[in-house]
């Protein structure tokens, strides 16, 4: 075992060239979306506010180690929450970290989890326009995600169609703890619209949407909830596979964001084992579950696994598939991964370039 020592800068590496698939922009206040909301919804927001399906409407369910789950060094000097300043995002992240393209995934305000479906749809429309006007138009390296209010499929499909031809948008963002497991048929019109427009479905952790945050109920500690992203993503992937979503939509692409990576090989193996014995329960599956995952599902890298032995990380990537890994930092959140140091294994220049840039370039068709 070697001692971790980063006291000195590493010898100069090739110039960093990164596509960051997970950046979280923030608003200073609700008023930022007012220009894009109908008057009646501004009034609704003012009178009734935002009502999510989980309790503590504007708060996270567990206190984070740091407010806003943010890097302590990501607060703008001029005030406002981390992620609200484009200038700081540029000087602290995009420029020094060689980010050629960055994909925005707005999480706060959880429009998909709004109890009032019509308000949720209006909010997605406003926040989608906000992403373009506030961010992409001012920073050509950034790309937006189409937020949808997934419990209102009709409203979601309309919003997908409205944005699909706009090159500022790269994907459709869904939060994973949907009212029913994500593969259920009520969500199929969304997958149909995604496939029709060749837009990936990005599933990013965020909020609980009224469900306990772990499969065993509400935990005591943030550390337990933080780990529960893995089991949440497992339920997303198994639902998509076993409901037959990938049989019905053979060109659909899904990217699982911020769910960790270490569980994927064992989860695939377990699904395959069950399928070999119980296949007749799901005869609509024509192939083993892991084949659907290998063909249809990508994974963002942050929070990167740190197994302690470099060979285990390489083995993990071998088993997931090197071409399925999309680099992400999670800026400005506290568990940010730095592109120089995220992979604690010796990678060839070609492997590094593939993980940091090439895979996302091919996946999103940018760059």
């Amino acid at each position, binding site marked *: 075992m*070697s001692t*971790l020592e980063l006291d*000195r800068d590493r010898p100069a590496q090739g110039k960093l060239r990164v596509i960051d698939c997970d950046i979280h922009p923030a608003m200073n206040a609700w008023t930022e979306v007012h220009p894009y909301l109908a008057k009646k919804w501004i009034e609704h927001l003012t009178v009734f506010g935002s009502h999510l399906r989980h309790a503590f409407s504007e708060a996270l369910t567990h206190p984070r180690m740091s407010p806003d789950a943010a890097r*302590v*060094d990501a607060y703008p000097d001029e005030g406002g929450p981390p992620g609200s300043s484009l200038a700081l995002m540029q000087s602290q992240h995009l420029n020094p970290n060689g980010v050629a393209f960055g994909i925005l995934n707005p999480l706060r305000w959880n429009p998909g989890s709004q109890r009032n479906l019509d308000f949720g749809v209006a909010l997605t429309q406003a926040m989608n326009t906000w992403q373009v006007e506030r961010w992409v138009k001012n920073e050509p390296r950034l790309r937006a995600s189409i937020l949808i209010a997934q419990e209102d499929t009709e409203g979601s499909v309309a919003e997908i169609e409205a944005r699909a031809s706009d090159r500022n948008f790269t994907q459709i963002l869904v939060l994973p703890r949907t009212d029913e497991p994500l593969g259920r048929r009520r969500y199929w019109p969304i997958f149909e619209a995604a496939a029709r427009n060749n837009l990936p479905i990005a599933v990013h952790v965020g909020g609980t949407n009224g469900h306990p945050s772990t499969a065993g109920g509400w935990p005591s500690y943030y550390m337990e909830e933080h780990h529960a992203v893995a089991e949440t993503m497992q339920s997303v992937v198994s639902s998509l596979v076993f409901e037959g979503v990938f049989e019905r939509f053979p060109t659909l692409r899904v990217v699982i964001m911020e769910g960790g990576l270490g569980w994927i090989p064992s989860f695939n193996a377990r699904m395959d084992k069950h399928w070999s014995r119980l296949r007749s329960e799901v005869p609509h599956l024509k192939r083993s579950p892991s084949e659907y995952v290998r063909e249809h599902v990508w994974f963002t890298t942050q929070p990167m696994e740190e197994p302690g032995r470099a060979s285990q990380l390489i083995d993990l990537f071998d088993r997931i598939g090197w071409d399925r890994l999309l680099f992400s930092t999670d800026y400005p959140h506290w568990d*940010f991964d730095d592109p*120089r140091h995220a992979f604690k294994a010796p990678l060839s220049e070609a492997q590094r370039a593939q993980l940091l840039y090439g895979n996302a370039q091919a996946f999103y068709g940018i760059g």
Partner: protein
Amino acid sequence: MARHVVATVDDIAPGQRKLVHVGGRDIGIFNVGGEFFAIANRCPHEGASLCRGRVVGLVESSEPGSYQLSRPGEMVRCPWHGWEFDLRTGKSFCDPRRTKVRAFDLKVEEGAALVEETLLRAETFPVSIERQYVVIEV
């Protein structure tokens, strides 16, 4: 190795820190209740600047349900992932053997003694005999 004057003791109030660059290294100088410590600024995990982190005490527990807070202000938490480093040793609490930053020898010395020293490097300011200075060896 050389000795470097990096601050006057008044530059860094108790609980505060100062980032200095000496001998090709970024080093954080921390004042813990009047005692000064110097550690490498760069977190060994992913390279964040430790000087941007929060200074905290050490929370421990003898059994579930009990909390003991000791050594107030003697730990710095990395501003990103929260690793806790002991300002006295540079060692992390959870993995002291492998995950650690270098701690540098630091002394507080009288200006009157320093002005006599020929091998000394005062990086940014003149040394006057009336004041006290933070001196590290790098």
